[in-house]
């Protein structure tokens, strides 16, 4: 060999093209990563910009404290957001009432009682449930759950808060189960064995030892699920109706923030009208609610985590 190994290595090192690639690649990859940040800024600026335009036409206090949402009444449209928030709140409450007891029960069963085999069968099924598109849930709510509930509660309207609430609860159920189960499974076995050794039953171990130890993860999962329920769109659009009202009943037609955005988008409100800008204001309100929930979940799981 005429060339020594050292000189070959040196030659290869000094190749210009290689050096350039090594320098350029991190920059290109950083740009891709920066795009996700840009997306967030894009969302925030879009919402703020268009909402600002909305507030040049409608006073901000009327929007936040107004109890009537009548954007389509030709003469004197009213933009008080409280009925929409209340609609969202009602659906979310019902969803939580369905999803939390069933979700926690299932999580405790999977983490404390179920055999490995049962777990291997049940968990993928829950994943399927989590993968069902929300439009399918919406159709299910409208054509199955509502008629079923009408048999039990005759006063129930075709569009109501109860049916989409229950179905949103079913939708967020897998999320609560899998995240709570993760939190419970990460409680070390020595704690369980200690309690069992003192004569506890499995139920006592689950409720008095595992549940408190995993509480931060469980609460974080519930808060995240609430955030999902608030932002859920298709189920409430199909089964909730489009009548924003300021009352606490659940048998009448309602409208959520998301459903209003859908109603305007499928209608023929032109670009530049007040109604057009109102969907950004409502979207911004929705964004603030979900962001607050997400930050709260992060705070809980960081601040109250028990380390073993």
């Amino acid at each position, binding site marked *: 060999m005429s060339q020594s190994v050292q000189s070959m290595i040196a030659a290869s090192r000094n190749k210009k093209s290689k050096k350039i690639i090594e320098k350029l690649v991190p920059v290109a990859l950083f740009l891709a990563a920066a795009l996700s940040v840009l997306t967030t800024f894009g969302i925030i600026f*879009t919402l703020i910009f268009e909402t600002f335009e909305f507030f040049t036409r409608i006073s901000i206090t009327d929007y936040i404290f107004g109890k009537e949402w009548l954007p389509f009444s030709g003469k004197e449209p009213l933009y008080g957001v409280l009925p929409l928030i209340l609609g969202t709140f009602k659906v979310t409450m019902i969803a939580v009432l369905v999803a939390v*007891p069933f979700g926690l029960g299932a999580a405790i069963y999977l983490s404390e009682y179920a055999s490995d085999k049962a777990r291997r069968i049940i968990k993928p099924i829950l994943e399927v449930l989590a993968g069902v598109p929300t439009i399918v849930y919406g159709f299910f709510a409208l054509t199955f759950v509502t008629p079923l509930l009408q048999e039990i509660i005759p006063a129930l309207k075709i569009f109501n808060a109860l049916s989409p609430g229950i179905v949103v609860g079913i939708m967020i159920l897998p999320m609560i189960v899998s995240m709570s189960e993760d939190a419970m499974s990460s409680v070390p076995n020595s704690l369980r064995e200690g309690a069992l050794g003192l004569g506890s039953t499995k139920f006592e171990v689950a409720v008095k030892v595992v549940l408190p130890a995993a509480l931060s993860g469980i609460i974080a999962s519930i808060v995240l699920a609430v955030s999902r329920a608030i932002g859920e769109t298709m189920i409430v659009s199909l089964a909730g109706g489009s009548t924003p009202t300021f009352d606490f009943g659940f048998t009448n037609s309602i409208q959520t923030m998301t459903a209003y955005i859908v109603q305007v988008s499928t209608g023929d409100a032109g670009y530049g009208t007040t109604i057009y800008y109102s969907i950004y204001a409502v979207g911004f309100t929705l964004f603030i609610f979900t962001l607050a929930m997400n930050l709260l979940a992060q705070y809980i799981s960081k601040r109250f985590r028990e380390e073993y």
Partner: protein
Amino acid sequence: MKYLNDVLVMKRMGSRLTFNKVWKAVFLLATSFALLSLIVLLFRIFSQGIGYLNIDFLTNFASRIPAKAGIKAALIGSLWLMAVVAPVSIILGVSTAIYLEEYAKKNKINDFIRMNIANLAGVPSIVFGLLGLTIFVRMMDLGKSILAAGFTMSLLILPVIIVAAQEAIRAVPNEQREASYGMGATKWQTIVRVVLPAAIPGILTGSILALSRAIGETAPLVVIGIPVILQFLPTGLLDSFTALPMQIFDWAKRPQEEFQYVAAAGIVVLMTVLVLMNSIAVIIRNKFQKRY
């Protein structure tokens, strides 16, 4: 010698043991509720939709007459949409994941990027629709095209792909990287020839699952305002189009009862596409995933 008196134990613990059994049954019941709702949902939709499902349904365009309504434009439209979403979201997502896992030093900017991705994953899909409407449809003037909807959907599923790719890249053991460096490879050579090949099954599985979320997502499409009754197929990325969930939404909203069956048939088609995509993901996971 007997240390435990069974009778005494039963007397002392009896009620607690029964309590345990009762609650076990309650927890099992809670679990079955989830499984039962899935079974009811699937059974209900299949039994409604199967009667309307035939070749004509797959090859007809949308129609105002239920019996003539078909899903061709929506099915092809969804495929066009995926043709944009898949490359855009996977390239961006994997690049971001490589940057975060292989290059990013621990500093404030990178921490911010990580936190931002976590928060982006929690933004409701309808808000992404508003972003798409303003940025892609109006500012970039793409109209209600495949490209505008595709970009919006890509941004929506980007966090999911990033997280999946990060996990796959993290699972590649450091020994492999060190061995590659030891052979004189540069960092980028190591990433391209060692890390990525080992991580690709995980990346693909995660990406397919994310894409299957995009194919069933309706809200952003509604906000962008893509049409539903189309009598032609798109021929380019700037054409208008319709998609499966959009078409189903339109049918489900219609007051005529017959359209409910059409909607159910549409859902069967959508669910079949999803099952196909998920099976591919599972096959890739089982066949190519290496454990180190």
